[in-house]
């Protein structure tokens, strides 16, 4: 099962790079949906063998993650794109080439961090911690280097995904109700953000957040 887990984590890392590299907004959303689906499989692959966890807990988390991260949230984002009549291209403030380069640097930093912060007990697979850090850092990169509100939402999702991967180390300690609560927060968050994007596009005729800067001292 460890090989499968490594494979899934690699897939997450590749989707990170893809989100950073693509110039099409819809591909971005698709890639983040694939990332969500990959994450839904991760707890199952990691914990269904070897550890004696309640299958109910595991199945619930996997199903919940799959539903919310791979289906409902991408649908909400797609709807926001459609209704807000967004330009279908990513609008980066840093060129795509440099973005990919920076994402590579972020991955390097993540591996370094995972080496420096020694785990008290070894992780189920050595890729888990670096990929989690890399996903968080790449999420930040997307957040600060893109101008559209939709891409900010995707950056936020990536950060949450990274935290989710890291959380797998404690999957057995967090009660399932709490884990579902965290998922629900994410869902409602994206829902509210979608509504906000819709309003922004109506008020400002576009969703570049650069023009959202009238409030200052």
């Amino acid at each position, binding site marked *: 099962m460890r090989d499968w887990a490594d494979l899934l984590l690699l897939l997450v890392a590749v989707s990170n790079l893809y989100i950073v590299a693509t110039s099409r907004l819809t591909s971005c959303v698709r890639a983040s949906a694939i990332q969500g689906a990959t994450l839904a499989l991760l707890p199952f692959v990691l914990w269904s063998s070897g550890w004696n966890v309640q299958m109910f807990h595991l199945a619930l988390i996997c199903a919940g993650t799959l539903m919310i991260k791979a289906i409902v949230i991408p649908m909400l984002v797609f709807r926001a794109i459609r209704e807000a009549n967004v330009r279908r291209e990513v609008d980066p403030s840093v060129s795509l080439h440099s973005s990919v380069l920076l994402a590579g640097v972020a991955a390097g930093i993540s591996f370094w961090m995972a080496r*420096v*912060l*020694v*785990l*008290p*007990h070894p992780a189920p697979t050595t890729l888990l911690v670096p990929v989690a850090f890399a996903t*968080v850092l790449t999420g930040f990169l997307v*957040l600060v280097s893109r101008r559209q*509100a939709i891409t*900010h939402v995707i*950056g*936020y999702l990536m*950060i*949450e995904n*990274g*935290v989710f991967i*890291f*959380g797998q*180390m*404690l999957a*057995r*300690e*967090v*009660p399932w*109700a*709490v*884990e579902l*609560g*965290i998922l*629900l*927060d994410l869902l*409602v*968050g994206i829902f*509210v*953000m979608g509504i*906000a994007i819709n*309003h*922004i596009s109506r*008020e*400002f005729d576009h969703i570049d*957040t650069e023009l*959202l*800067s*009238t*409030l200052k*001292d």
Partner: protein
Amino acid sequence: MMLVFLVTVPAILGLVSLFVKNVRFALTVLLSASALHSLVVVLLWTATWSAEPCWLLQLDVIGLLFLTITSALFLAASLYSIPYLLGDTHGERAAPHRFVPCLLWFLSCMTLVALTQHLALMWAAVEGTTLASAPLVYFYKRKSALEAAWKYLLICSVGIALALLGTFFLGIAATASSPASPGLSLSALMAAAPSMARPWLKAAFVLALVGYGTKMGLVPLHTWLPDTHSQAPSPVSALLSGALLNCAFLAIMRFYQVCLASGDAAFARTLLVTMGIISIAVACAFMVRQRDYKRLFAYSSIENMGIVAVGVGLGGAATYGAMFHAVNHSLCKAGLFFLSGNILREFGTTKVSDVRGLVRRLPVTGVLLTILFLAIGGTPPFGPFWSEFMIFQTAINTHVWLGVTFITLLAIAFLGMAGVLLPMLQGNAASPAQRPREATLSVLTPLALASLVLGLGIYLPRFLTDLLRQAAGMLGG
């Protein structure tokens, strides 16, 4: 049972009020929910049986302190909302039907933050407060309100995502003692703290401070706060400032408790004092010559949260001062934001330069504004004077330069606020067309808060000092 009741009832009533179209009826729901909430909180104070732990909910002294602040402010805000919502000064685009449900969910989430000691559940609750209050910020549906709501939603959500990472880091740190992790409940983490892996513990505290610090408004993560607090409707601003910032502070304190239990809290103290002093300094810089009075109050919140962080970071008697100051600040700031609503209604602007002759046009509001300004500025005999004095005393005993910096910054803040507010109060306004409109409830609630602040400065009842002392004791005071 009572604890579950306290969290779920507002949430359910919020759902019910979602389907209520009549504003008056929705306000009745709001008022009964807040009255019920306060009643149960009083019960928690008096009867021990009612505070029995249930599921993941458990009440401790710090939780009770912050729960009481939240409940009292919410009751005041609901009373203030009555004239606020029924008045016809909102314009067509405002969304009063969204107001009550979101406010009740907001209450439910804040209550959950105070009541739970499971760190992951607490995280979910803090994130819930953001989601419930974001639509409230967008109440007026203006462009500027939209901008504020978007910044609030995104910056706080991203910030708090880091706090979740910090929570998991803490769980990892706790696995050092035994292969079976103790989980993420506070008591288990504190028991495991002495043998925790130090790098993970420190990283966890830093992430929590950054994450929840975003929500608490600590500089440099405060950028959303002045926008949000100035654009939200006044009763919401009062709750955001008086209750929500405290909830975020409570979340940081849970991590601090674990650091204290590990016997290795020096780094956490240094971080708290540094962030606190920077927050006070930056807030002061923006308060001087501020052109928007709601932003002025928002920056004053940042300043006061900085004071609280410094107090806890200093430890000793200052911890008691910090707890007391959190109470004082909540009461003062809620009152000030209520008053800002009255001013906004009368003058139709938040620009300082357009508001003149306040004492003549709105006599009660003007006088109360003066009183609450003196209180939050730290003049005797009001409560904040004593709490700030306690923190100052500890600061100057620890390092003379720290105490001097602290008191200088407080003086600048006071003068800055005076420079902005005094011209608003004085002057001869263009004669008002009609009799000044000051609805009874919209001046009665700030009056009640002001008299509470005055009361706390003159006489601290025994049960409150006991609670504050116990809370400070849990935070190393």
